[in-house]
């Protein structure tokens, strides 16, 4: 485990959440999500467990990872260790929604699934964090405009300043999901619930930005 990050666990002690060197997307996704949970103080009792191994499998691809809780923190690695305490099969493009009943320890499975589903931030906060994380990527537009339908009509957040802009429109949950990294931009775009306005090159850049917030790459 060479990639490590200490996430300040809100209100309690810090927790080390480490991912292996040259980690795969699923490992990165799990590591980033658990760090988000730690950052906002979500499920601290689970993140501070001193034992337990959990296998996470994708329901539609061979992607798999293991979360190992220990006295020195949490390690996430690719593949599945022999005889994990529990195995959960999830839809990685649906925010870790279980796709089958877990095997093994059901309480541990429930706790980990909860840790992997931190509450989404407000769409405006998520857009701001997305911008702060990705604005330095080459080719990022100067201005990000997020548009959604509110109870009183259209609402928008305009972040940044300059001559080039990129517009993303969707409902609040969709925007929060994409901007927070809970959802993959391209997957959501292909599902038809997101509207975008910008150049093809900007879509490519925004895809990279989505990977950065989702997978930390």
């Amino acid at each position: 485990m060479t990639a490590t990050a200490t996430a300040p666990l809100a209100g309690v002690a810090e927790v080390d959440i480490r991912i292996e060197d040259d980690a795969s997307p699923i490992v990165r996704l799990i590591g980033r999500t658990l760090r988000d949970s730690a950052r906002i103080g979500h499920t601290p009792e689970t993140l501070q467990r001193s034992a337990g191994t959990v296998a996470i499998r994708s329901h539609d691809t061979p992607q798999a990872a293991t979360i190992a809780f220990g006295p020195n923190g949490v390690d996430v690695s690719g593949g599945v260790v022999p005889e994990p305490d529990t195995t959960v099969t999830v839809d990685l493009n649906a925010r870790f929604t279980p796709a089958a009943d877990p095997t093994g320890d059901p309480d541990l499975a429930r706790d980990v699934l909860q840790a992997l589903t931190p509450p989404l931030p407000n769409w405006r906060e998520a857009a701001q964090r997305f911008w702060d994380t990705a604005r330095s990527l080459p080719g990022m537009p100067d201005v990000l405009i997020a548009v959604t339908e509110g109870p009183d009509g259209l609402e928008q957040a305009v972040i940044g300043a300059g001559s080039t802009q990129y517009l993303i429109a969707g409902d609040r949950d969709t925007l929060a999901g994409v901007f927070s990294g809970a959802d993959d931009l391209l997957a959501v775009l292909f599902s038809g619930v997101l509207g975008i306005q910008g150049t093809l090159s900007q879509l490519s850049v925004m895809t990279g930005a989505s990977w950065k917030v989702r997978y930390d790459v």
Partner: protein
Amino acid sequence: MYEPTRPATEADRPESATRAVRLEATNHEGCYLGKTVAPKKFAAGKDTGFAFADLLFGLDLGNLPVFGAVFPDWRGHLDDVYFRPDMSTLVEWQPGVESVIGDYWLKDGTPVPICPRNLVRRMVDRLASHGFTATVAVEIEATVFEESIHEARSRGYRDLTPLGGSAGTAYHLAKSRDWVDYMNAVADRLDEVGIAWEAWSDEDAAGQVELNLAPGDPVTVGDAWARARQIMREVAFERGHTVTFMAKPTAGYGQASHINLSLQRDSVNAFHAEDGPSETMLHAIGGLLATIDGNTSLVLPQITSYRRLVDLTGPPVTRTWGISNKTTAVRAVCGNPTLSRIEYRLPGADANLYLALAGVLAGIIGGIEQKIDPPEQIADMAWCLPPGLGVERLPDTITKAAAALDADPVLRELLGDEFVDFWIASRKWEWMQFHTAGGDPSAELSEWESARYFELP
């Protein structure tokens, strides 16, 4: 040196005999792409160029647009780039159909910076500025199967029957007739098209062949490589078989594409010295080893490429060189004024030879320009070395190699930031596709890889 034996000109070939002209070039992945045009269209466009959508440099092997990074400035919304034929490559491919290789250019008349053939030409020119010319040769390894391409497709390119039987050993002469007939037919077609070849033989794995093309200048050998692979595919299809250049078509042996190279100055082999490697050769090796981590990304381009890197199985796994040592990454052949050369042993059969040559030449140029001394040569076996000896292992994943290329100042300067950034983005996309679209890193060879890499590049 390879020279097309049929440099067709309009004077020696009546236009009426030609029904079509096929325009050909590789994209970055190494796919041999093009279109067939009518003779009148060809005559009208051969000087100005033929429009191709820039997507030929923007799609992955699964036909999806590659996203994840900013596009080069010249890429718009599926805008055009222009194929300009290199008329010195015009040959009769089959009766009534001519074939010509070319390069891609932008509207403003400058080369597409990521066009593989243009990149080789750029390195050749840079080398020439130091007074050197390069002579290169390439070994093409491929595996031939009994089944037709249609049958192979229906089986997901798996569980196929090696042509010539499953008794595997290199150089085996008593192969069954179908295997010999296939290679004889390939050799006949190479002769017809004017591609000089030196040898073909049985290779290690069942169904595997090796074809050695004649040495020549880098661009010409790149052209011969592209056409020879096309011929090997066409002949296989015609005979109801199939052939693949995957780095590892089965869970067994892999397939390489070793590059042999020497430099000449004033028609004299600059790598030769009476007492071993010349100073020029040492600097070339120094540059090659200094850039080998970054160049790994170019010569091992795909996910499957890295499955070859297993100690004791043939490919190099360490950043090493040695005289007459084929376990190292760079083998130096010394002592003969004609044969003294470098063998760069890392490329897989799935590498785009143009890009591999551009990267190798860039490493050599860097070594010569900066007078880079190589580390001490390895006299022992360069596989299975324990840690602590100061011998580094090569990047063993597509992501590690891309990171090494990103950080390589020599390759960035010589190949250009635009190409390097474009290539790294494309490898990141490939990595993401593998993991999120069905590839299995824990498998010896996953179905996703067979589907993606068997027919392409």
